[in-house]
Structures are given as structure tokens and as C-alpha cells.
């Protein structure tokens, strides 16, 4: 598969919260197996755009959405689309880690269990180990798998949340400022893991930290006041931004 094929296609997306418009006519293609970083000043619609991709916007009653979001060519807002399947395919790493109120082991196994993906204790054990290793947490928790997830440090919790998301075999991982609640070392840890995962997953991250965006991004979207201002390969956007607003943002004006 060519590196340039797009995995998510968004066409003419408008999002309203009540009467105010949060996203204005967004059309963008997000490349497969790369890390795409959505940047922009706060309130510009970064998170709204991200959450349009796993149908999280509809958790708010006041939201109205028009336009299409295609994942692998399939419309995730289609009438016959199963929202649980959409969210299984498009995982989300939230801003603050929220493990489930159960053991470390069960946190990872829970998704596989509700989607009936495995059978037998041994299969589960193997899968839990695999995903905890993938999230770089295995060595720290292998002797305490049945302890409460709440007993982990916040950085460990975020990696557990990543393992929990990976366990339902998504194709896409969304990250909503996934390191903003973490200390610098835990943030580095998460960044390293994400870089390692991009060969197998399409990753889309919202970040307001410019340096983080530079470290992670293969592809960049810059948003401002609900509009998509500029999108392109990271080196191009960072080195030679085409638009005035992008230049302003990159030079720290807002």
C-alpha cells in the first residue's frame, strides 16, 4: 500500500454547537500510517475535528453535524453504520487518562470481551501481555496485573489506556492532547510509543505544543477559528508555511 493513500476523508464538514458554528466547511484527507498533528490556538476546533472521526460529537445533544466522514471509503455517519464498530475501528486516547474501575488486566481485556474477540483464558492472557508490551507498560505491571488500575501513576494510566484502546484492534488512533496531563518523562514515553506504532496504525493527534508537533508530525493540519487554514507534509508546513495565519502561529504570535 502506498504511503500516500488517504485513510480518512472528510468532505464539507460543518459542526454546530447550538447556534455557534465550531467547524466551517472542512474538507481534508488524512494519510494512512502516518502521524497527523492538528494544531491551532485554543478554541479553533481542533478537538471538534478530532471527535468528528469517532462520532464522539453526538454525545452532546446540542451538536448538529453535516457533511461526510469516510474511513476506508465507508461513511461513518451513514444510517446503517454501527457506532460501536466505528469506535472500535477508530480508537481514542483522551486528554486525561481514565482507566476503567477494574484491575489492570481487566482494563485491557474488557474491550476484547465486549466485542467477543477472544475465547479462553490463555488467549486473553496472551493478548493482555501483547498489548501491555505494545504500550510499554508490561515490565512495570506484570507482577500486579490484578491490582486496581487506579493504583497506577498517571503516566502509567495513560499507557494502560493506550493498551486498552489497542486491544480492540483499531486501525486509527486519535489522541486528544494525550500528553497534556502528564509529566515530561511520561510524555516522552507516550511520544516514543506513538512513533513506534505509526507503521501499523494511522495516528491523528491534537496538540497545542509546537515542539511536540515538530517531533511527531509527518503531516500537519493548521486550524484557526473553525476553519482549516493549511494542510501538508510536516516539513513543508513548518519550513515554508503558505498562509499568513500559519506563519503567525508558528512564530508565536497567537
Amino acid at each position, binding site marked *: 500500500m502506498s504511503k500516500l493513500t488517504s485513510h480518512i476523508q472528510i468532505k464539507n464538514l460543518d459542526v454546530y454547537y447550538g447556534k455557534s458554528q465550531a467547524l466551517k466547511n472542512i474538507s481534508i484527507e488524512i494519510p494512512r500510517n502516518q502521524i497527523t498533528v492538528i494544531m491551532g490556538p485554543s478554541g479553533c476546533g481542533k478537538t471538534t475535528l478530532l471527535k468528528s472521526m469517532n462520532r464522539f460529537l453526538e454525545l452532546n445533544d446540542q451538536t448538529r453535524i453535516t457533511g461526510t466522514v469516510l474511513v476506508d471509503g465507508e461513511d461513518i455517519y451513514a444510517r446503517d453504520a454501527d457506532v*460501536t464498530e466505528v469506535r472500535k475501528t477508530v480508537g481514542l486516547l*483522551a486528554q486525561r487518562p*481514565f*482507566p476503567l*474501575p477494574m484491575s489492570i488486566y481487566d482494563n485491557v481485556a474488557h*474491550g476484547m470481551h*465486549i466485542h467477543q474477540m477472544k475465547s479462553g483464558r490463555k488467549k486473553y492472557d496472551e493478548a493482555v501481555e501483547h498489548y501491555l508490551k505494545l504500550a510499554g507498560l508490561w515490565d512495570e505491571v506484570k507482577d500486579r496485573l490484578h491490582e486496581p488500575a*487506579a493504583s497506577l501513576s498517571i503516566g502509567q494510566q495513560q499507557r494502560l489506556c493506550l493498551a486498552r484502546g489497542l486491544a480492540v484492534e483499531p486501525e486509527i488512533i486519535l489522541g486528544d492532547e494525550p500528553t497534556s496531563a502528564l509529566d515530561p518523562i511520561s510524555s516522552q514515553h507516550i511520544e516514543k510509543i506513538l512513533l513506534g506504532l505509526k507503521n501499523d496504525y494511522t495516528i491523528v493527534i491534537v496538540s497545542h505544543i509546537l515542539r511536540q508537533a515538530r517531533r511527531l508530525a509527518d503531516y500537519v493540519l493548521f486550524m484557526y477559528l473553525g476553519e482549516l487554514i493549511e494542510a501538508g507534509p510536516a516539513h513543508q508546513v513548518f519550513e515554508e508555511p503558505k498562509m499568513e495565519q500559519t506563519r503567525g502561529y508558528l512564530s508565536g504570535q497567537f
Partner: protein
Amino acid sequence: MGMKKKWRKRHIIETLFKGIMFLSSSVVVFCLGYILWTIIIKGLPALSWEMISQVPQGGYYLGKEGGILNAIIGSLYLATGGTLLALLISLPIALYMETYMGTSRWGNLVRLALDVLWGIPSIVYGAFGFTIMLAIGMRASLLGGIIVLALLEIPIMVRAMDEVIRQMPKDLEQAALAIGSTKLEVALHVVIRQMLPGIVSAVLLAFGRGIGDAASVLFTAGYTDRIPTSLMSPTASLPLAIFFQLSTPFPEVQQRAYAAALVLTIIVLVISLGSRWLSSRLEKFVIK
């Protein structure tokens, strides 16, 4: 300058109010202590193995042999049955309020109804239950008592659970939704586990109210000297055992009333401490 404390008006007022608050809170501790003291002093001499292992013999209420095993077993049956039935009805209500209703008008109406029901005196529940039992031709029985106790306990249980559920972080539900859970799966696997310590406390609160209530079981469960053998048999209870014995003119029978009160208190205490222990173990899994 000077860092030494000067007795100004605001310091005097603070000391005064602190004193009032301390006195108010010591009333509570004093009451508990005094109640325990009274039932121990008056009840302990009459408490014997015979008392808790036998049903009343002929002439028991005149001071002859026997015990209150009928009331102990009866109360445990009634309160356990009522609490389980109430839990069965309360949990879906609480989950429904949390997961689907939120603060919608229907949700608030249900909350209002529960608050009003909470305030209704238990004798009214008893009378209400009795009227219905008469209408369907049912006699005073264990089942009747269980149903009325469940009605009495539901508002307490649901409101206690509702308080816990409202402290549920919204992000936690979203975390479960993000891996493709349905709302029902979120409710059953995540909300319930997060609430478990709260559910345990709610159940205890309701059980305590149920086992101690005399008025609601007076007409509906009746009273008997036998241990109930089926859901249709009339059933004795400790609160009524206390009431009947205390209203006799014989000092030794009155003393047995205090012994019965002591037994009732011990049951509540054991359940209360047990659930605290359980709740603190479950608390470890709760996501803050």
C-alpha cells in the same frame, strides 16, 4: 507591630462559634453512647442463650420460658427479602436515571417522586400495603411484609445511589464508549463497578431502615410465635417484639424487650461494620 494574639471581638466570636459547633456534634455522640448504655445495662442481664435460641413458650409474655428466635429469624427474613427486592427495583431506576435520563424533565419528575416517597411515614406504607392485601384477599404474611419493606426502602436506596452516580466522572463513561461499548455495557460494566462501594452503603442504609421499622410490618407481616415456614406465613419481627414486651406490666418481660433491642442493635452493627469493610476494599478500584 506584634505577632502576639490579641483578644479582639472576631477572635471571641470564632471561639464562641467553635464551642457551639463542638457542643452540637457532641450531642450526636452522646446520644449514641447513651442509647447503647441503656440497652446494654437493661438488656444484657436478660440476654441468654435461651433468649436467642428458642421461640416463645406458653406464658412467655407473662415471664415464663422461651425466647425471641421467632422475631430474630422473622426480622432477618423480612429485611433481607425487602432489601433484595428493593435492590432489584432500585438499581435499574438509578442506572436509567444516570445513563439515559440525566436531568431531563422525566428524570427530575422521578427524583421528585422519590423524595416525596422518602418523606412518607412508614405507617402509611403499612396501611397502604394492608389495604391492597385486603383487596386481593392476602393475609398478613412474610411476603406482604417483604413487599411493603421494599416499597419503604426503594426511595432511600435510589436516592443514595443517585448521589453516588452523580459523582461519576463523565470522562469515565466516554473512556468506555471510546472502545465501542454500548450504553448498556457502560452501565453494567463500568458504572456499576465505579458505584459498587456506594451501592453497598445504599443497601446498608436501606437494610437498617427496613430491619428497624415496626409500623410497616405491623399489619402486613403480622406477628406470631412461630418461625415462618413459607412466604405466606405470618412473621414476627424484632421491633414488634420489643413493642409487645415493653407494653406488658411485668418487669422481667420489659427487661427482655431491652435484650431484644440489644440483639437488633448488634445485627445492625455487624452489618454496618461488615459493609464498611467491604466498601473500603471495593473503594480501591474506584477511579477518582
